[in-house]
């Protein structure tokens, strides 16, 4: 049963986000805005060394400090939490030793929490933290992947024998033969430095353990309350149904707020030990040191091409430095796996060999962050194909046209094993070429080069696996569901209350869910309220990860909406004695399906359904609350795709790079709300530009973080970002009724690829190339200097 066209107007409309009026008037309620009675504030003493033995820890003076309620060390905290063993059970050979919450004997990354202060205010907790005296014996630290893999490297976890966390290879076809027979082989080495999500609001948690009924309520700035309900239950030994995790308004997340952090776990343990609510909000220095990091790869990559312009093979050898442990629940294999699976996926070559190694180093853990490996895969293929096209004298756009998977070959499986079905590389590319006026732009670029102005054009094609199915985490043993759910209730007034398992950190997903329910039931969006982010309300579901909210949570909402509509019509039929098939719901009223004439209002349905059931036929079953869940069980993911272009100028005197233009043609399937989707893509693009040009967690060779403030870790401000034009190709996902795919990461993936290619394009006439991200002015000038040195 589908809503009639007359009422189906919400999906696809540019409807402003409904949460914004609250957020824009200072009425958002973020984690640090919330106070509970008797609440204590936590702060942590952290290891100042990347690798050191804890010789002694004296907390006596801290315990006496004003306002301090307790000081906890490993002795009190660790026994209360089952250690995390971050091993993906479905990845043979993956290894990660058990992790406890606080350092007991040896710290293995700088910033690892050692002691915890609980005080009446955060300021008093910080005062007391300064009184903790810790004595350390520094140990040799492993600073990067090359040190980690060296024969004489210190072994971070002696029980593992070496620093290798994971070593995975795949092969398809006969790459050696293809390389031997190639007309052109291009080989390059790439370096991607560490970066971090740097959400404007730092992480935060309020744990409230009630010893009266042994229940735990956690207000948690987290993307997946259901995941954390399971984590708290299983590791702290509290029955799952007595744990409630509620997400408040969240000031940005980008995957970083999906991870499990030892300081947050310790906060919950402290609440259990003290029987009082405990708040812990990370300060900015801690955020740089202890929020999950991302990337950190050293990669060799090569491509084999025939004189005709046909790609015949690719090879990837990735070495990633994943920090000192696997990330609990999210592991440390995903970035490398995504690189080897995705590299070259838009292109129809047959021969491929790839290897990824994850290595332990004495640094903070690598965790989830927008894109997880996908942008790197995009960059490798786009830089190499651009160079191959040059070598053959073929324009890079024409080169893409020749090598994309032909439309007729779909569905297909790429050499890296990715499933492509409803992708639209050709349509996106042709639309983009028109959008940027490609030929004219090339002419302008050539003219300016004659005048010593070095501009570059970069075009990048990407695949974005979104809305992963259960195979993503289920077999790994992580308690993360790929399912999402939606509960709908017709209120006595005739309005609809919707509870979704999806969480919203600014994407606007909740507004999208309201649009879907509105059209499916046949009511105005104003008649629907949507809440999400409470593990105790509505179905157990995944929340926000892997660009899934609208695709899976939206499909669940559509299915729940269909059920509610059926039940409303059944009740309307019973009340009015009209056959159900003659009724429909349009604009919030039950009408005659043929004439559109009013039959009964939803308010009347609510009145009878809740207060006058006695007037209904005997035995009539009134069900005005329904629940539906959905999981993409038949597919590994819904593959979104797109093409982006960058236009940049490199100042050869200063090494500064200016973004002149950025364009995106994106295919995320059916677009539920273009207003929100466009800004989601633009936001991803801004982070992608930041990643390529500015963002780096700078460590000394021996593992000390050197930039822990926003003044030192640069992210784009408005002046660094150009206007961004976004257009769409809509190729709906076939396996859902909704047809939406995810869109959370594509902006970033494509932008990183196109900026890489554009900057290198600008440097080409100077004989220079840059392969080390971020492209700081210093690295640009070094690249130019290398080009001048024979």
């Amino acid at each position, binding site marked *: 049963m589908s809503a009639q066209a007359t009422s189906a107007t919400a999906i696809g409309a540019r409807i402003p986000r409904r949460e914004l009026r609250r*957020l824009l*008037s200072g009425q958002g309620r973020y984690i640090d805005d919330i106070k509970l009675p008797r609440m204590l504030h936590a702060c942590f003493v952290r290891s100042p060394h990347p690798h050191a033995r804890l010789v002694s820890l004296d907390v006596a003076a801290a315990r006496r400090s004003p306002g301090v309620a307790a000081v906890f060390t490993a002795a009190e905290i660790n026994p209360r939490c089952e250690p995390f063993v971050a091993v993906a059970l479905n990845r043979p050979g993956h290894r990660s030793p058990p992790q406890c919450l606080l350092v007991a004997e040896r710290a293995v990354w700088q910033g690892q929490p050692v002691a915890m202060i609980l005080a009446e205010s955060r300021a008093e907790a910080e005062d007391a933290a300064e009184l903790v005296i810790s004595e350390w014996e520094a140990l040799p630290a492993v600073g990067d992947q090359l040190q980690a893999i060296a024969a004489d490297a210190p072994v971070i976890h002696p029980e593992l024998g070496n620093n290798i966390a994971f070593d995975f290879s795949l092969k398809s076809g006969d790459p050696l033969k293809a390389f031997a027979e190639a007309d052109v082989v291009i080989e390059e080495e790439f370096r991607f430095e560490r970066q971090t999500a740097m959400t*404007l609001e730092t992480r935060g948690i309020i744990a409230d353990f009630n010893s009266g009924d042994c229940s735990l309520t956690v207000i948690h700035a987290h993307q997946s309350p259901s995941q954390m309900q399971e984590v708290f239950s299983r590791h702290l030994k509290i029955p799952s149904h007595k744990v409630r995790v509620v997400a408040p308004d969240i000031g940005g997340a980008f995957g970083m707020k999906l991870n499990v952090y030892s300081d947050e776990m310790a906060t919950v343990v402290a609440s259990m030990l003290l029987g009082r609510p405990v708040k812990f909000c990370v300060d900015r220095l801690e955020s740089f040191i202890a929020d999950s990091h991302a990337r950190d790869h050293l990669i060799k990559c090569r491509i084999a091409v025939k004189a005709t312009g046909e790609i015949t093979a690719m090879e990837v050898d990735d070495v990633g430095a994943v920090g000192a442990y696997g990330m609990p629940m999210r592991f440390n294999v995903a970035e490398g796996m995504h690189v080897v699976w995705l590299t070259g996926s838009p292109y129809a070559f047959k021969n491929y060999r790839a290897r990824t190694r994850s290595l332990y180093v004495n640094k903070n853990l690598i965790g989830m962050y927008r894109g997880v490996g996908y942008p790197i895969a995009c960059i490798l293929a786009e830089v190499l194909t651009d160079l191959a096209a040059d070598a053959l004298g073929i324009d890079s756009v024409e080169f893409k046209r020749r090598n994309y998977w032909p439309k007729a070959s779909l569905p297909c499986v790429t050499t890296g094993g990715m499933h492509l079905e409803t992708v639209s590389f050709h349509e996106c590319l042709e639309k983009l070429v028109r959008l940027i006026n490609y030929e004219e732009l090339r002419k302008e670029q050539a003219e300016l080069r004659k005048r010593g102005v070095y501009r570059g054009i970069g075009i990048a094609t990407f695949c974005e696996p979104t809305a992963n199915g259960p195979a993503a985490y289920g077999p790994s043993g992580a308690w993360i569901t790929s399912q999402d759910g939606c509960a709908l209730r017709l209120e006595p007034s005739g309005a609809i209350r919707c509870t979704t398992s999806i969480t919203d950190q600014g994407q606007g997903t909740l507004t999208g869910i309201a649009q879907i329910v509105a059209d499916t039931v046949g009511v105005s969006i104003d008649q629907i309220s949507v809440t999400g982010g409470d593990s105790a309300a509505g179905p157990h579901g995944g929340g926000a990860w892997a660009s899934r909210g609208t695709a899976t949570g939206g499909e669940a909402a559509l299915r729940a909406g269909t059920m509610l509509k059926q039940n409303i019509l059944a009740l309307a039929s019973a009340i009015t004695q009209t056959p159900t098939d003659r009724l429909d719901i349009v604009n919030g009223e039950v009408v005659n399906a043929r004439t559109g004439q009013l039959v009964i209002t939803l308010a009347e349905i609510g009145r009878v359904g809740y207060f006058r059931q006695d007037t209904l036929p005997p035995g009539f079953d009134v069900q005005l609350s329904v629940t539906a869940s959905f999981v993409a069980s038949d597919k590994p993911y819904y593959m979104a795709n797109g093409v982006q272009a960058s236009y940049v100028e490199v100042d050869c005197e200063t090494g500064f790079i200016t973004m002149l233009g950025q364009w995106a043609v994106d295919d995320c399937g059916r677009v539920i709300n273009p207003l929100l989707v466009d800004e989601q893509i633009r936001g991803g*693009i*801004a982070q992608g530009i930041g990643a390529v040009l500015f963002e780096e967690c700078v460590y000394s060779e021996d593992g000390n973080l050197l930039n822990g403030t926003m003044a030192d870790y640069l992210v*784009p401000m*408005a*002046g660094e970002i150009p206007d961004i034009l976004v257009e769409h190709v809509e190729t709906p996902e076939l396996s859902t009724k909704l047809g939406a795919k995810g869109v959370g990461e594509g902006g970033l993936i494509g932008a990183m690829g196109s900026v890489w290619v554009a900057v290198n394009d600008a440097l080409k006439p100077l004989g220079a190339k840059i392969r080390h991200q971020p492209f700081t002015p210093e690295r640009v000038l070094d690249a130019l200097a290398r080009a001048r040195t024979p």
Partner: protein
Amino acid sequence: MIEPSSQLSGEEEILIEVTLNGRRLKRRVKARQHLADFLRQEMELTGTHLGCEHGVCGACTVLIDGHTARGCLTLAVQMSGKCVDTVEGLTESGQLAELQEAFITRNAAQCGFCSSGMLLTAYELISSNETLSRGEIRECISGNMCRCTGYHAVVDAIETVMTRRGKHQK
């Protein structure tokens, strides 16, 4: 009260008299407490956010005597005799209404954490009677970090209000 010559620990309390969102009030504040913490913790005006406490991100932007200032780089004790306006007060008075509508229409916010600061910077901008291009608007809001939107919609929203007020030139 404290002796001017004494060694300060920061815990000492000092009486201040401030006009906050149009209302005069007297409060004892700790010498070390910055304005944003005072607003958030003592006055429970949580619309002013803290992103870095370092003067970089602009999330804590408030108006002091009508001019934007960083709430994290200003001590509460410095506010004696000053007028402080926050997003709550300017919302209540309706002074931000036009900008708020433009931000909503254009989806110029996602998580909303930067928005209070961004709105106050934009408010100062549109109140200044200057005529600005898009590039100049970008420069003027470059002290307010937004990690979500990509800024395009924020520039659109400010440009919309400026155009409506006839102050915009291409």
